[in-house]
């Protein structure tokens, strides 16, 4: 008698992200499925069209982090399977106008946007993901999250006794209830040389690079999807002015940086 054992198809990894010699994230395919894995944290298996998806958290993964993943990153990856654009960024709006802040992890996106949301009339649209819809020459962003994830360090400056090494979810006082038109995208950078926040408009290739780095992608190996991504990023770059805000790390300068970014709601409209 022969025992037949069903085995899952082997994953063919397409791209890996490595930090300090360790794989932190990788994307691949297993048969017809798309796979994203964060070693030690969990893995997402999804159908090519994103209509079936299953995230399996690793033993010991923090349930709060897992929930944050489901709402933000996993939703963003699934949107890509449907040809939708999601940027890794924090977003705020006043009325029907929005600004998206992009930048590497640790660039202060959540902190700046949480601070902006304390200003009159400004509401949180998303803390980690900006879900975009391209509508003619306009780019619309829809609400994704109602929590800001702030570093303990940022909270301590505001008087909290939070552990500086942790990220803590803080419910926003004002959450955007509807979609808004993006009037500006701002790439945030900390600079040891900067004495005050400086804002500059990014020219062609730099603007494209900033957008491309911020785009969540799940389908990496299909030429038509790559061409579609290229076309969508081009449309966004043509429709919206993209800036860079360089600022010192000092929190005393935080308010000035927020002023510069909030002002874009008017000047770039």
């Amino acid at each position, binding site marked *: 008698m022969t025992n037949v054992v069903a085995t899952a198809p082997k994953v063919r990894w397409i791209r890996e992200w490595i930090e300090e010699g360790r794989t932190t994230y990788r994307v691949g395919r297993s048969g017809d499925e798309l796979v994203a894995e964060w070693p030690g944290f969990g893995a997402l298996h999804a159908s090519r069209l994103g209509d079936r998806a299953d995230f399996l958290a690793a033993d010991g993964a923090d349930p709060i982090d897992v929930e944050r993943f489901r709402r933000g990153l996993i939703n963003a990856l699934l949107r890509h399977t449907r040809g939708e654009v999601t940027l890794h960024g924090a977003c705020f709006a006043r009325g029907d106008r929005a600004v998206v802040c992009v930048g590497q992890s640790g660039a202060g996106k959540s902190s700046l946007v949480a601070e902006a949301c304390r200003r009159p009339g400004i509401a949180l649209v998303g803390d980690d993901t900006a879900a975009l819809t391209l509508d003619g020459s306009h780019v619309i962003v829809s609400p994704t999250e109602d929590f800001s994830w702030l570093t303990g360090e940022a909270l301590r400056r505001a008087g909290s006794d939070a552990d500086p090494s942790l990220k803590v979810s803080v419910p926003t006082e004002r959450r955007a209830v509807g979609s808004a038109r993006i009037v500006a995208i701002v790439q945030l950078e900390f600079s040891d040389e900067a004495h005050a926040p400086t804002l500059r408009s990014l*020219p*062609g*290739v730099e603007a494209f*690079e900033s957008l491309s780095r911020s785009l969540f992608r799940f389908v990496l190996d299909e030429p038509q999807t*790559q*061409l579609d991504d290229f076309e969508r990023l081009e449309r966004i*770059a043509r429709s919206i002015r993209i800036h860079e805000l360089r600022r010192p790390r000092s929190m005393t300068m935080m308010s000035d940086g927020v002023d510069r970014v909030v002002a874009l709601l008017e000047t770039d409209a």
Partner: protein
Amino acid sequence: MTIGGDARFEQAPGAHARRFEDELVILDLAGGQYYGLDEIGAAIWERLSAGRSPAEIAHEIADEYDAPRDRVEADVRALAQEMVTRGLLIARAS
């Protein structure tokens, strides 16, 4: 492979270029990579991919930008070499 002044090229099937103001971004479908070119690099790419030779391009660009022709031709040949190495341009048979 050394690029001669009279060499001619065509855009590789997997290379797709789009203008961003005066600059240019090329998507390489084979590697899923983007490459950016500044204003002069964009002008050279568009002429190389249209089948013009480095010598012809150097002649035009040296006039447009008031630069020494020998140096411009060396730059054009170096860019063509890099684009061929990266699989974005294909040398035409002479």
